[in-house]
């Protein structure tokens, strides 16, 4: 009898385990966009990310290092870009995301010009996916970074570019 119970428990467990592996937001919510001709689709595989160390990137050292740090943690990047109907697409996209699954890191609306949403899916301190939705007057961009993302590295990278932008601003002023 014990064996019978064991067999049944095993089968029940096997049947109830959700078969869904880690699925990124684009595969889950936006697959219809991927097939859509109006969208430009780019996928960067984990293999390509591994090549980063071997190639020189045409950037300042700080920026290159910051990018390399971020890239180390990435397991995939999916990008969708559309150039028509952008605001409608942005609205649709931000509604489609299940807010129980994705946490809004921040949302920015620039007075009818451009809206940017940053969404994360995390387990504890590690971010499994970082999703950026940009709805501007000219572009609709959907980017999904998957991996084991360290938000501190992302912020350091943002900072490296920010300093650079400021430098450039100063240059212009001079």
């Amino acid at each position, binding site marked *: 009898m014990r*064996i*019978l119970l064991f*067999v049944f428990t095993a*089968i029940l467990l096997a049947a109830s385990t959700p078969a*869904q592996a880690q*699925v990124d937001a684009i*595969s*889950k919510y936006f*697959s219809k966009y*991927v097939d859509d001709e109006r969208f430009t*689709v*780019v*996928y*960067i*595989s984990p293999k*390509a*990310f591994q*090549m*980063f160390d071997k*190639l020189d*990137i045409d*950037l300042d050292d700080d920026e290159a290092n910051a*990018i390399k740090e*971020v*890239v180390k943690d*990435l397991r*995939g*990047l*999916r*990008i969708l870009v559309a150039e028509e109907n952008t605001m409608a697409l942005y609205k649709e996209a931000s509604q489609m995301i299940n807010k129980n699954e994705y946490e809004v*890191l*921040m*949302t*920015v609306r*620039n007075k009818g010009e451009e809206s*940017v949403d*940053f969404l994360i899916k995390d387990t504890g301190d590690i971010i499994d996916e*970082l999703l*950026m939705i*940009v709805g501007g007057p000219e572009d609709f*961009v959907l*980017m999904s*970074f998957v991996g084991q993302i360290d*938000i*501190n590295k*992302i*912020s350091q*990278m*943002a*900072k*490296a*570019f*920010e300093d650079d*932008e400021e430098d450039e601003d100063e240059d212009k002023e001079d």
Partner: protein
Amino acid sequence: MTNQNIQQLLDKYFEGETSLEEEAALKNYFQGQHIDPAFQAFQPLFRYLDAERQTALSPSFDEKVLSRIQSERQMRVRRIILPLARVAAVIAIILGVFALFPKNPQPAQAVAAIDWEQYEPETDEEAIAEATAALKLLASKLNGSSKTATSELGKIEKSAAVFK
């Protein structure tokens, strides 16, 4: 003992009327060397009975019995496992059938069927350039938004803390 005596005893014996002493006498006679050829035919009967009486348990008797019991126990285990195995086999077959013929409308599965490989840039250099551009865009959007966040509203504290 005379042959006549023997004949009488034998007759009685086969009638089942011999006493114990008379049977012992008969046995004694057939145990002996000098048996009349007329009674030779009965010799094995009495010798056999006697030989049977002498058989004892062989020294390995206990072992043999115990090993029999042991094997019987294994048989019983087998008798329990076998039907269970049948049940398991049936379940496995049913599951197998379900796995082979999944329900036809499966929108959830279609989602996972995107072939991302075809959207990969052809060379690693291109892939890296694309990824770098994407990260740059991400960084600039983060910066732009953290600026607006701090300058306009000081929005979510979390993001402000992270991206300062």
